[in-house]
């Protein structure tokens, strides 16, 4: 079996790629996709840690996996709202480029 730290390293890579994408992409929908990537990195870390915590019994280990389930629901709700805002704004516009929304300063 592959040790937990390798999975955490993979999740760290995915998280960082998502964060870099968030900072460098300009289209709102692309930025949003990068956030999804970051959430998935967190989920991967949770699942890996859940297996590691098998040593502490059923409840401790399964809590990690169940948290992934909850975060999935959070992501779904976030997507509903985020795409709702996108559609509401860009129905009448040509592009989802955040720069056409003038200065979106970070």
């Amino acid at each position, binding site marked *: *079996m*592959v*040790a*937990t*730290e*390798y*999975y*955490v*390293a*993979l999740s*760290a890579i*995915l*998280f*960082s*790629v*998502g964060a*870099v994408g968030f*900072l*460098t*992409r*300009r*289209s709102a929908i*692309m930025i949003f*996709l*990068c956030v*999804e*990537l970051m959430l*998935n990195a967190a*989920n991967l870390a949770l*699942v890996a840690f*859940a*297996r*590691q915590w*098998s*040593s502490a019994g*059923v*409840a401790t*280990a*399964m809590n990690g*996996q*169940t948290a992934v389930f*909850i975060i*999935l*629901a*959070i*992501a*779904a*709700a*976030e*997507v*509903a*709202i985020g795409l*709702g*805002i*996108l*559609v509401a704004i860009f*129905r009448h516009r040509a*592009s*989802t*480029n955040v720069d056409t929304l003038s200065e979106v300063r970070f």
Partner: protein
Amino acid sequence: MVGFIILAILATLGAIGVVTFRQPVHAALSLVGTLLTLAVTYVTLEAHFLGAIQVIVYAGAIMVLFLFVIMLLNVGGGPKVDRFRALRPLAILVGGLGAAGIALVAFLDARPLPGRDVIDSALAGGGAGRVGDALFSDFLFAFHLVGVLLLTGIIGAVGLVQRRPQEAQQVVSEPTVEPHEELTHA
């Protein structure tokens, strides 16, 4: 280990695709690839139920919603120049350092993995039954709150999108200023 390396490479390539493809559809499909790879990874981590959910809910429902919106808004490829082009190497550097830092911490704090039998008895493959047990005991309150959260999401999305068209028309034009207030703020 070979399996993990293949999965890791696939997931990373998908992730890099998300942040480099110019066409949103390509980026979204690239993310679907990463999500499916992660689903397989969950199965290798004894989380079968989550693997299935990942495919059905995430790669299925959520990403279809994304693709639908991309099509609906007819989002094309953006212009070539990205935001903060000059800062881009810096962002990549910081991201790389961040990833290296987290990974380093994970390796420094690494603990030996429990034995196969311990994992099997605790997770039992991560089936729906075990997840359900945890969901309706330790996570009972969280489960209720997820209901509230999804309700908020529905109400919010409907409240944003379901407006009468003439109203949108009316506000798209520049806001009119009341007669005695011809100057807007500087």
